[in-house]
């Protein structure tokens, strides 16, 4: 039992470490897009920057606004972080933490509940910027969840299982059968994780910092870690659904899978460095009038094709 606890703590620590390094990869990636160096001060090439960031952020002043609802203010980031990292329970490797038959369903549930955390953060801040940011973030997440889920169901019509590991080793490159689904799904994933070009939540020119505006040290750390954790997990889902494969040795297969996940998470960064942000009503129009009908049509096509 004690040994079991150690395994979980270790996996948790490794996930947090990978997310912390993703932060520096993003900053360096964006700077390469802009033809400059990026952070390279803390140590050689800035490799200890996540440690420096973590220490700096957690040691900042603990400020809870007087006008805020104290309990919800503290629980909000906790909620978002817990439901973002609870997803990592279903990481599809050959020796997982536990056998989970309906892992994709679990993924959809946790992503949906995370929206509550966002609303809690924004509403309890008692700040107009925070509230507007939270409403916009929740509306965006909730709208894109439908096309996200529908498109996620399309490759499953060919497979018939909800287990991520089975999908990953099914060795059918669904990219061939569902190219359009992959492209549209990637757009939905960008919107779900509030990434550019859909980062209206944190549109600095519009809403200062969205629902995170009142959060200082601990809250900002948890919210940012949650966001980057969900980015890596989205690329993991993408990889296990659409680019599934299996070689004979499971360890080699796991390593190649991890490399592919990292590569796809780099795509999120490249998209951020390339595309501008338009307008919120254009985002909502695109979701309800373009992506939702298209995703239902793709579902029907996959239904027919999987005969």
């Amino acid at each position, binding site marked *: 039992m004690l040994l079991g606890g150690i395994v979980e703590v270790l996996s948790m620590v490794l996930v947090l470490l990978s997310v912390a390094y993703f932060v520096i990869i993003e900053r360096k990636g964006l700077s390469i897009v802009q033809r400059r160096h990026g952070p390279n001060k803390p140590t050689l090439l800035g490799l200890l920057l996540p440690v420096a960031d973590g220490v700096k952020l957690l040691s900042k002043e603990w400020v809870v*606004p007087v006008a805020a609802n104290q309990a919800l203010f503290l629980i909000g980031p906790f909620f978002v972080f817990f439901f973002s990292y609870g997803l990592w329970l279903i990481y599809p490797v050959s020796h997982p*933490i*536990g056998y989970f038959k309906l892992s994709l369903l679990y993924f959809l549930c946790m992503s949906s509940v995370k929206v509550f955390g966002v609303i809690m953060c924004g509403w309890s801040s008692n*700040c107009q910027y925070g509230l507007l940011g939270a*409403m916009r973030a929740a509306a965006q997440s*909730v709208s894109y969840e439908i096309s996200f889920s529908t498109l996620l169901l399309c490759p499953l019509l060919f497979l018939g299982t909800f287990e991520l590991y089975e999908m990953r080793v099914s060795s059918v490159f669904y990219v061939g059968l569902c190219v359009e689904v992959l492209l549209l799904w990637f757009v939905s994933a960008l919107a779900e994780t509030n990434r550019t070009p859909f980062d209206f939540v944190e549109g600095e020119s519009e809403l200062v910092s969205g629902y995170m505006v009142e959060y200082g040290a*601990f809250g900002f750390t948890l919210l940012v870690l949650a966001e980057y954790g969900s980015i890596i997990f989205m690329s993991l889902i993408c990889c296990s659904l659409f680019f599934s494969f299996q070689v004979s040795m499971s360890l080699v297969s796991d390593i190649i899978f991890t490399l592919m996940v990292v590569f796809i998470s780099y795509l999120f960064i490249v998209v951020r460095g390339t595309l501008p942000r338009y307008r*919120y009503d254009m985002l909502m129009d695109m979701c309800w009038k373009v992506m939702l009908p298209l995703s239902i049509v793709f579902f*029907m096509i996959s*239904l027919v094709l999987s005969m």
Partner: protein
Amino acid sequence: MGVMYLIVLFFVTFGLIILGYILGVKTDYSREKLSTYECGFEPLASSRQAFCLRFFILAIIFLVFDVEIALLIPYLLSVGVGMSWVVRFLVFSFVIILMVGLLHEYNEGSLDWLF
């Protein structure tokens, strides 16, 4: 095993918050630090305003389509077993009805985001 991971995660999160508190709590409160942020000014109005009903309508429409997805999920679990064309036709007609519903909403203007 899975529950153990979630318990560990709970305590890690709690630990991060407590660490933030221990490292960062200061008692020299000042009016500027404790008031809510409004670009440097005093907060002009309360943030507890009435919210736009557009968000509520959006939530209602989301509810309908989320229930659709929830109803499609059992079919996906039986894809290997229930391969009969009758079942497939029924699911297809279900999705067609939903598509018609979406197009009706589009027509009615519930999907317009008017600001």
